[in-house]
């Protein structure tokens, strides 16, 4: 038995699909190509097998995700993770929030920021630069976006340059996308043995 988790955590849960993923044994050539399945690499997550139902999107998605989160220059990787986390908190995507809070903590070698955010939510006490980044990403993630002059001015006053702001726009927007797949198509779960 597994239990759906509803509280934010850095302890990354399992993702349990609400739809039936593609069966690797029955996958088309195009799906296998997009899944990067080779004789030496047959491990594919349920999440990616679920997305393989829309193979044309899956093919462009992975390089785009990697580019936005990992391309050199611009905003630091930890700050891009903070943008991703802000979006995931707005959309209440427990799985994405866990993955990106965990990465933020690893990159910063500190759990201070993500502890505060999970404990106190949007009112958490943050340094001025993290505050400006988090507030902008939260506002941009609402539907419709609430980001405006106030949040953009705060980013510039916190010292972010044009390239860094663009990376924040991209990384927080990207999680508007990822959250609507992860949080819609499946549940974050733990098995009973993990709970015990």
């Amino acid at each position, binding site marked *: 038995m597994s239990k759906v988790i509803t509280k934010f955590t850095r302890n990354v849960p399992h993702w349990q699909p609400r739809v039936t993923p593609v069966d690797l044994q029955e996958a088309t050539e195009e799906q296998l190509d997009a899944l990067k399945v080779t004789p030496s690499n047959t491990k594919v997550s349920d999440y990616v097998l679920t997305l393989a139902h*829309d193979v044309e999107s899956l093919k462009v998605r992975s390089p785009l995700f990697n*580019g*936005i989160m990992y391309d050199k220059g611009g905003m630091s990787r930890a700050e891009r993770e903070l943008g991703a986390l802000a979006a995931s908190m707005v959309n*209440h995507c427990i799985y994405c929030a866990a993955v990106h809070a965990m990465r933020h903590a690893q990159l910063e070698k500190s759990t201070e920021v993500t502890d505060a955010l999970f404990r106190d939510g949007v009112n958490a006490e943050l340094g001025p630069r993290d505050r400006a980044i988090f507030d902008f990403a939260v506002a941009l993630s609402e539907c*419709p976006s609430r980001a405006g002059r106030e949040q953009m001015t705060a980013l510039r006053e916190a010292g972010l340059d044009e390239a860094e*702001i*663009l990376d924040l726009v991209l990384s927080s927007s990207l999680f508007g*996308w990822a959250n*609507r797949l992860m949080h819609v198509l499946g549940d974050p779960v733990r098995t009973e043995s993990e709970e015990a």
Partner: protein
Amino acid sequence: MGLDTTATMIAGVAGDTPVGRAVETRASIFDMTQAAEDAVLRPKDPGPWSHALRAGLAARIATLNSDAELAARFVADAGEFAMLADPANDGDAQGVSAVVAFMDRVAADTRNVAVRDVSDLQAAGVADADIVRLAELNAFLAYQIRVIAGLRLMKDISA
């Protein structure tokens, strides 16, 4: 490269400006964003969701996000589904009310999406693969709309 995409054109980003130069350093990301738009709005294999229906749903999601300019761009390709751009239209007349209800919820009330939203579509006879197609369309638009909103702010509120 990077400036001839839907996102940069709708946001009005010009080449020799601070925002335009920042976009050019991330040109491959903007080009891949355009490729992703093609994959969700004009896929080679659209399944049961025609290009016109996808454009109508995209226009609706842009409207829900208060982006009239982007909505108008998608409406131009929506044909008989152009009416869906108006969130007051529940899609019943077009025979897509279950799809429209799902798309509205995922776009505008994401945090409260639950297993019921998916099972309602399954009960309406939508195959799992086609639910994933709808989610990808919705999810991509959430991204593109926010990139445009962010670019507009960068452009309008200069350093």
